[in-house]
């Protein structure tokens, strides 16, 4: 078969792969088809990669031994690592892993761009357009690389989650930006021939730009609170897509351009959706300083003038044990305390006593979308007990005890009543409708939004101050004791 025809077939394979990515994403919009969608997408990827391999082997000159070795070994090592991590990671640690994969993706895009530049610098192929794409690819790729690593570290707890703002960070950012732009211009002018710099110098400049971009990625993510990381990761994800597209322009390969642009755009939309879900704006998130700044609630019974009623473990146990209907409201605290198993135990015990128990799942409870679903699924909570917000809200009024475990903002009535509140307008769980409310948390500490919660000063509410896990364990013991 002629070169041409092989390339044609390879091209079609690439196109088919890209189409599979699109249809896969489409299916991932709805839970029923999401899993197939992901597999379709994976299939497309396999086709695209195999086609590339065939192309490299069959083209004139073929694939050098070293080339093949690099490809094979590189793939095995990288693929092996990825597979291992993906298999072994705990469900709740997945976001930081995704961020890690995003980082290496961005890094790879940057490397492709840089490597190509090293080849063409000084050669006729070094056109203005190529140079532009090289620099864009390198810069965006490096920003994602370092930025995603920081984001991953924050979620993993390797780096403190709270916003880190060191003196002069603003200035530093500006300096970096200015330098990058100048270097960019220099290289472009050089490629246009208006400016004559030796190849060596050009490469050094590109190197410095790379370093600047890496530092920039760090300074960009550090000041952002850990709770906002899901959004940041999504944004960086869209960056990586763009970087991949740029790399595609550099080596002028359609499948990279298509897939990259696809992720760049869809990732952007998705980021907006995520920000909306916890009603924040992307800009507002990126300036940072928000979230993780969880102070402690004003003087007990300050704001609303109500007073806080503490409740003992035994009282709480009795309330629960003799209730008809109990709704558990899990929140971020449950995740922090890894109390998912403890809560299931208590729930099963209550059910054994004939109490009707269900869990009220707020879409943005916790720190990542679906956080509570993941946690409770991990603890094998029977799925029919998990109830969507819209579905469960009407039931609170018929509920004897609402057991709030480490949830705060998602139960804050201010979202309904107080227009000046930062979370005003966010749909919440109508916990305050329940006949009586038991809240397990360690203190009067604030939640993600860093605001007071009048639920705690509600006369119907009894506060059980404890770490979620311990508190639940104590309750279980107490109920057993009855």
């Amino acid at each position, binding site marked *: 078969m002629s070169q041409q025809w092989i390339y044609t077939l390879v091209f079609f394979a690439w196109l088919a792969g890209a189409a599979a990515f699109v249809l896969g994403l489409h299916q*991932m919009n709805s839970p029923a088809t999401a899993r197939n969608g992901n597999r379709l997408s994976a299939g497309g990827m396999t086709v695209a990669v195999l086609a590339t391999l065939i192309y490299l082997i069959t083209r004139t000159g073929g694939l050098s031994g070293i080339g093949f070795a690099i490809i094979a070994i590189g793939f095995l*090592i990288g693929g092996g690592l990825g597979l291992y991590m993906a298999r072994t990671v705990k469900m709740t640690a997945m976001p930081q892993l995704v961020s890690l994969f995003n980082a290496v993706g961005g890094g*790879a895009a940057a490397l492709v761009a840089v490597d190509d530049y090293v080849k063409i610098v000084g050669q006729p192929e070094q056109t203005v357009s190529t140079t532009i794409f090289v620099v864009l690819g390198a810069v965006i790729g490096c920003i994602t690389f370092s930025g995603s690593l920081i984001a991953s570290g924050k979620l993993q707890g390797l780096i403190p989650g709270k916003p880190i703002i060191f003196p002069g960070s603003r200035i530093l950012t500006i300096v970096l930006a200015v330098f990058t732009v100048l270097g960019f211009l220099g290289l472009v002018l050089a490629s246009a021939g208006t400016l004559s710099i030796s190849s060596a110098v050009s490469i050094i400049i590109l190197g410095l730009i790379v370093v600047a971009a890496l530092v920039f990625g760090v300074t960009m993510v550090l000041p952002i609170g850990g709770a906002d990381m899901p959004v940041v990761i999504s944004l960086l994800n869209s960056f990586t897509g763009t970087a991949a597209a740029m790399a595609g322009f550099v080596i002028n390969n359609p499948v*990279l351009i298509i897939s*990259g642009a696809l992720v760049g755009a869809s990732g952007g939309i*998705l980021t907006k959706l995520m920000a909306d879900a916890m009603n924040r704006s992307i800009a507002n998130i990126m300036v940072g300083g928000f979230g993780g700044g969880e102070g402690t609630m004003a003087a007990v019974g300050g704001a609303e003038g109500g007073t806080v009623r503490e409740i003992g473990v035994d009282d709480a146990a009795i309330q629960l044990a003799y209730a008809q209907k109990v709704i558990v409201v899990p929140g971020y605290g449950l995740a922090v305390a890894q109390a998912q198993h403890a809560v299931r135990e208590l729930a099963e015990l209550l059910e054994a006593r004939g109490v009707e128990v269900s869990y009220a799942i707020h879409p943005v409870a916790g720190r990542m979308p*679906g956080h509570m679903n993941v946690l409770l*699924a991990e603890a094998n909570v029977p*799925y029919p007990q*998990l109830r969507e917000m819209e579905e469960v809200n009407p039931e609170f009024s018929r509920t004897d005890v609402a057991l709030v475990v480490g949830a705060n903002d998602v139960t804050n009535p201010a979202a309904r009543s107080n227009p000046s509140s930062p979370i005003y307008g966010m749909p919440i769980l109508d916990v305050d409708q329940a006949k009586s409310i038991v809240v397990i948390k360690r203190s009067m500490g604030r939640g993600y939004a860093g605001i007071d919660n009048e639920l705690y000063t509600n006369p119907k509410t009894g506060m059980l101050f404890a770490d979620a896990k311990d508190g639940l364990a104590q309750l279980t013991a107490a109920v057993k004791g009855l």
Partner: protein
Amino acid sequence: MSTDLLNALAIFVLAILVGFEVISKVPATLHTPLMSGANSIHGIVLVGGMLIAAEADNALSYLLAFIAMVFGAANVVGGYVVTDRMLQMFRKKPTVAKAGSETAPAATDKG
């Protein structure tokens, strides 16, 4: 600009439009899997890595290409596997499809 470049730009623009249109109203619980799924897709740079690896002819290029391969492969393989694990949570609701079905976790994953 060369026709090749112009065509490439047209492809770029169209792909962006597809990206905008393909994401519709997604339930919040699908945000993370969807992000993870998109994340695996840009692992396509792996193909870029392969192409430069084949062109490589000096130590530096070898090194860059090798790292690119490792990174790209990790992105692709890891990305798809972890996404699939996330999605194990979503099983179709036994009863008729409704909002509820959007967060139906299959109580199977031991994380």
